[in-house]
């Protein structure tokens, strides 16, 4: 797999597993990142408490690229503000745009996301927009300077799997940017299936964080993502509507 690196925002990664750091104890981040082989980890920005509280940056391995999200933003303007504050902390210029006005299904506002992508990419950010998989929007994101498109598989945190599969396939075929499936992937098999479609990477958080053994599940995702990637690169075998023997039918009993 060494010659199959994942190129994103001018960097090269050996791993195609982007790990979300929410919903689990920061003490576990190192082992989860190591077991999952994750080289990119997402973070959120929130008001800081005084009094020397533990900071998540102290728990993330040094080789990891940080991907702050703009969670909490309901408009492009709010996302831009969060992105700029995040960059000021000094951990690079990657940003995952997440603009969510809906608190029930957590559906992103695709149009505001295009606006924020345009603004932030002009300001030198590596912009990874999280969207509902819509081909027209994805093309607009491409023109707006996005470095990847992050379509949702199912609602955030739902673990429902690859519900939007047919629409993600359109993006893989038509969009000349890495497609990173984000949100909703609940099991390694679903991550594998998405990779088999030809997406470039998988982002998962809740599937890991709500697993019984968090670090082990991270490893399961790593293996599934690698398997799906290899299968994609291999070119899946064809499908028939009837049987075709795998063993030779001649040369012995009925010759």
């Amino acid at each position, binding site marked *: 797999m060494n010659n199959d690196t994942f190129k994103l925002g001018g960097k090269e990664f050996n791993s195609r597993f982007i790990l*979300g*750091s*929410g*919903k*689990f104890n*920061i003490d576990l*981040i190192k082992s989860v990142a190591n077991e999952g082989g994750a080289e990119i980890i*997402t*973070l*959120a*920005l*929130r*008001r*800081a408490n*005084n*009094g*020397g509280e533990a*900071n*998540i*940056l102290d728990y993330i391995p040094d080789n990891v690229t*940080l991907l*702050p*999200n703009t*969670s909490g933003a309901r408009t492009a303007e709010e996302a831009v503000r969060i992105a*700029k*504050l*995040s960059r*000021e*902390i*000094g*951990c690079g210029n990657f940003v995952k745009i997440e603009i969510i006005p809906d608190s029930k299904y957590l559906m992103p506002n695709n149009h505001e996301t295009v606006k924020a992508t345009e603004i932030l990419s002009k300001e030198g950010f590596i912009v990874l927009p999280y969207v509902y998989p819509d081909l027209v929007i994805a093309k607009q994101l491409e023109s707006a300077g996005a470095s990847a498109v992050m379509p949702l598989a199912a609602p*955030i*945190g739902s673990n429902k799997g690859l519900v939007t599969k047919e629409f993600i396939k359109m993006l893989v075929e038509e969009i000349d940017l890495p497609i990173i499936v984000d*949100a909703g992937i609940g099991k390694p098999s679903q991550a594998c299936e998405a990779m088999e479609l030809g997406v470039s990477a998988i*982002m998962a*958080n*809740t599937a890991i964080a709500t697993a019984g053994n968090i670090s082990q599940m991270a490893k399961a995702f790593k293996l599934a993502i690698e398997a799906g990637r290899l299968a994609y690169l291999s070119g899946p075998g064809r499908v028939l509507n009837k049987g075709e023997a795998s063993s030779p039918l001649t040369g012995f009993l009925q010759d």
Partner: protein
Amino acid sequence: MKLNGKQFPLPEAVTISDFLKSQNYPDDKVAVELNGEIISRTKFKNITLKDSDEVEIVCFVGGG
């Protein structure tokens, strides 16, 4: 002043840098917005907070 949306008594003017230290914020891991404007870390020592200011101090937390 108003700190992260709440009133915070500021008896005397103090630099951002000294304020962060006195309140035990890790100044290399936070971003500061003063009256709506993001303040670069290199200016923490030069800019003084006043009681009329609105300040946001933010940091990274776990998120997906």
